[in-house]
């Protein structure tokens, strides 16, 4: 079987079997060759715009990347929609359904791509669940366990904007707030806009608590878009070895 030689794949550093993630166990970022960049922040903090611009920058540069959004797995979409429309969700089932959605994306996209040496950009990640579901009253310890299977990001950007700025951005551009989005299930206020404001205030508080414990890179969401993007690109370039994700031609030189 000497002919086998030709078929041999280029040496790819394959993680030893023991480091393969076990579902329900934390996945350290060294366990895979890819890199994970996450943006977090309240609604209206500017995070999606910034991640879009970062993605464009990397796409134009030809880097291997994948973009993933919170709450987007087709598998549990119908259940989530039904639960929301019929208001069947409680804090616990709301949280579990989002975890199921994330698990599906994690097991079928994020983990395989990280193992396949991709840059993965995530618009919202597990911290969204921690902030939102804790604000709804779920036990923080239970939540931390629930998402223990998630790989730890290489960089987590936290876009921080004062409550009024963020809330006004949303309220001026999108007059109709959805029931759960406005936190109406918490019974904070009968007025949707007011309920939204109170709910967002709680979420902001929860995000702030995670800055140190989860090594957030805090960015000022009120800065001009292009200046903020420059900061973000500099930080990405300093924290991640981007050459590794460059197109093959560039890699050769």
């Amino acid at each position, binding site marked *: 079987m000497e002919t086998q030689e030709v078929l041999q794949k280029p040496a790819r550093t394959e993680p030893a079997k023991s480091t393969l993630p*076990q*579902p*329900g*166990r934390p996945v350290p970022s060294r366990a895979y060759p890819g890199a994970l960049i996450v943006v977090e922040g309240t609604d209206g903090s500017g995070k999606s715009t910034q991640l879009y611009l970062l993605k464009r920058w990397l796409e134009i540069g030809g880097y291997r990347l994948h973009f993933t959004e919170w709450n987007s797995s087709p*598998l*549990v979409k*119908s*259940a989530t929609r*039904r*639960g929301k429309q019929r208001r*069947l*969700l*409680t*804090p*616990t*089932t709301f949280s*579990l*359904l989002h*975890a*199921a959605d994330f*698990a*599906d994306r*994690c*097991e*079928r996209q994020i983990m395989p791509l990280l193992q396949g040496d991709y840059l993965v950009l995530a618009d919202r990640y597990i911290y969204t669940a921690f902030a939102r579901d*804790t*604000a*709804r*009253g*779920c*036990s*923080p*310890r*239970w939540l931390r*366990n*629930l998402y*223990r*299977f998630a790989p730890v990001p290489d960089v987590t950007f936290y876009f921080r904007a004062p409550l009024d700025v963020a809330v006004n951005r949303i309220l001026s551009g999108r007059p109709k707030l959805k029931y759960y989005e406005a936190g109406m*299930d*918490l*019974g904070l206020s009968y007025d949707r806009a007011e309920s939204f404001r109170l709910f967002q205030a*709680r979420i902001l508080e929860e995000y702030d608590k995670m800055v140190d414990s989860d090594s957030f890179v805090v960015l000022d969401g009120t800065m001009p878009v292009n200046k903020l993007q420059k900061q973000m690109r500099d930080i990405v370039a300093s924290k991640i070895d981007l050459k590794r994700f460059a197109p093959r031609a560039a890699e050769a030189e």
Partner: protein
Amino acid sequence: MPDQERDKPAGTATAAEAPAVPVPPVSTPPKVTSAPEDTGPQSFFGEPLVGFDPSEITGSLIVIEGMDGSGRSTQITLLQEWLESEGFAVQTSGLRRSNLVGRDIDELLAKNAVTRLTLALMYATDFFDQVEHRILPALRSGTIVLADRYIFTLIGRGVVRGINRDYMSGLYAMALRPHLTFWLNVRPETAFGREFRKAQAISYWEAGRDMSLSHDLYWSFIRYQTMIKREFEVMAKKFNFIELDGEASVPAVNKLLRQRIADQLGIRSTKYTPSSALSHLWR
């Protein structure tokens, strides 16, 4: 999956350390104290469930666990009739029966395009939806809830598929601790025969075909159910299961169940003969 067996014995979470931001259930005035961290038999395994107070529980939660073909459903049907004849209101629960995601899970199973973790979390969603919308309301109104399987099956299924054991029990930290948990223990070989006779077939999931244990349907079933059974043996000690011999006749098993339940509920007589509608089960 022997490499997953090395985990330290799962301690279900002891007690919530920091009280979470207390949030009142919808439409109740803000209440600052959430559920007390009771360790008594009526309370939760670990964390309290958001917005529920276990002291409101006046009914009883009775769980019947056991593999497919152990006789669970037959026994529950008979127990319901007996309890109703004794004047108790009975509610049943079981897997995939929630309004929220019951059907979605059926679809996922049919399509067989789901990963183990997602499936485990969908089952957890289904479970808690039933706890919050079916089991707890019933228990608060003094109803007897007969649960056809409970968290133990769900934990066992996850663990044999390689999901961390602590993770699985942590997931169910807010499950209510049952008043009685029966385990109808049968040999997988017996269960196979019973299940096959029911439908003239064995389903993909019952046989654990997703685990690639064997191409032979029979051996796949036996190996899978043996793994589950081993998990049950571990949990039986930890969670005080009342183990019953599921190989015994239906009337014999039913009698033992009635005795324990009568004790629990303070029913004096355990006499029971099924009505003609159920007499076909009595063999």
